[in-house]
């Protein structure tokens, strides 16, 4: 029923189609382009649509742009999803703990959240990556570190309202342990609004990863869209396609995540409105 409604909204459909294509690209990359995308495939600066073996041309070093695009989709999606999952997990645990425990624990956890929120997220990621060194794992941690505060605040607000509900009182009356109440009664009911944030976080994570790569702080052993745009910048006048093609991919990916996320939120809101 819920899925049916999801497929009725044109935004949701286009978002899901884009995400589906990106996912397929990411999955198919090792089969379609088994060679290292960082290896030289042909003459440098080959324009698109000249050679059907290299349909989107090559960059300054003669690397295949299509292969880069496909392998870059892997990095972007992996970093986006992993960072979002990590930040939602950390955020909802911190928020639930703060809201449920209250008092001193709440005070400490929320001041830590404040501290993280006052530092601009991108600077935080930048600092972390430049100190520890660029690798995929560090990039994921760096992005998660700058985006867990949103989910934490929302989870806390939800938990504060839920813990006053009668069903939590009822769980206490039957003798349920406080930890079980937090995990079984409170957390599952606090999650939906936190999950509604996830599309925004995934999209922001993809953009942050691209920005880090653009600044040369991405994982040097992987092709990323941000890195490709950065590479193309040096020859922006003579070969603008090198920046434009990964740029379009980036815009589409972020748009796809947003649209699909909106569609899911709307369809679940419609469901609640009817109930």
């Amino acid at each position: 029923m819920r899925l049916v409604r999801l497929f009725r909204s044109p935004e949701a459909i286009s978002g899901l189609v884009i995400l589906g294509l990106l996912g397929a690209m990411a999955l198919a990359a090792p089969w379609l382009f088994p060679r290292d995308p960082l290896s030289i495939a042909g003459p440098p600066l080959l324009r698109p649509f000249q050679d059907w073996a290299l349909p989107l041309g090559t960059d300054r070093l003669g690397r295949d742009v299509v292969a880069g695009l496909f392998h870059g989709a892997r990095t972007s999606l992996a970093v986006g999803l992993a960072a979002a999952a990590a930040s939602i997990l950390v955020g909802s645990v911190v928020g639930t703990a703060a809201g449920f425990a209250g008092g001193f624990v709440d005070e400490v956890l929320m001041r830590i959240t404040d501290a993280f929120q006052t530092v601009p997220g991108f600077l935080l990621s930048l600092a972390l990556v430049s100190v520890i060194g660029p690798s995929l794992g560090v990039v994921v941690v760096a992005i998660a570190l700058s985006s867990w505060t949103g989910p934490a605040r929302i989870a806390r607000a939800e938990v504060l309202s839920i813990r006053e509900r009668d069903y939590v009182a009822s769980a206490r009356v039957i003798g349920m342990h406080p930890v079980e109440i937090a995990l079984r009664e409170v957390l599952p009911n606090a999650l939906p609004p936190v999950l509604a944030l996830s599309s925004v976080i995934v999209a922001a994570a993809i953009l942050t990863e691209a920005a880090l790569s653009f600044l040369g702080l991405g994982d040097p052993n992987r092709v990323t869209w941000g890195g490709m745009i950065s590479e193309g910048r040096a020859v922006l006048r003579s070969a603008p396609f090198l920046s434009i093609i990964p740029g379009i991919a980036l815009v589409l990916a972020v748009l796809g995540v947003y649209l699909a996320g909106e569609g899911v939120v709307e369809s679940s809101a419609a469901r609640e409105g009817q109930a």
Partner: protein
Amino acid sequence: MSAPLLEVEGLTKRFRRGGREFAAVDGVSFSMAQGETLALVGPSGSGKSTVGRLLLRLTEADAGSVRFGRADLLQLRGAALRSVRTKLQMVFQDPLAAFNPRATVARLLDDPLRVNGVVARGRRSMAIAELLERVGLSSALASRGVHEISGGQRQRVAIARALATGPSLIVLDEAVAALDVLVRADILRLLRDLQRQERISYLFISHDLGAVRSIAHRIAIMDAGHIVEQGDTAAVIANPQSKTGKALVAATPELPHARENVS
């Protein structure tokens, strides 16, 4: 005379509202015998619901003692408190609010059995079916979600959940107030029958004197945090002494033929 089941002494709870402190419950004392129903009646804001929540330790009291069996309820902590709670249960006004919206009937009834280890794991589904049967529901209801059953069925499930751990006292906090007229009579009848079979005591918190008259042995009338009058239900309703008691009796809507019978 046997020792009372519950003895409440000087129970007090203060709240802050708008910077001012006021006593929602102010030195309340009463006792209850095994198998007895005591109604706690009063206008809204009189503190009657707070008394119920204090007994169950859903809210912490500022002063007073609650002797229940051998223990002072207000002094218990952690596991000791959780184990006493098996003997002291509660049914809320709105079962939809008192149930986790994601739960099924089976899970709601399984929780108290599992948490307190009352019934071995293998026998739990049988125990759930028995509980449903005791409150007059079909065991086929077990797999339903809380949104898929009627209001009356929900309140029966709430009663079954309270019965699961074999309590000696159930606090009924406006437990029939939100129900339809015909369903309300059924639920009151169910409560009375369960009391006769198992000698459970009820603390029946209500503002509805009609419902109180039909089920309570004794009545305590509260106003502004104090018990202003208590006694045998029929006697108090026939001849209330306190101002609040008189106002409550006068305000209760009656059908004309009932009035004639009284006079």
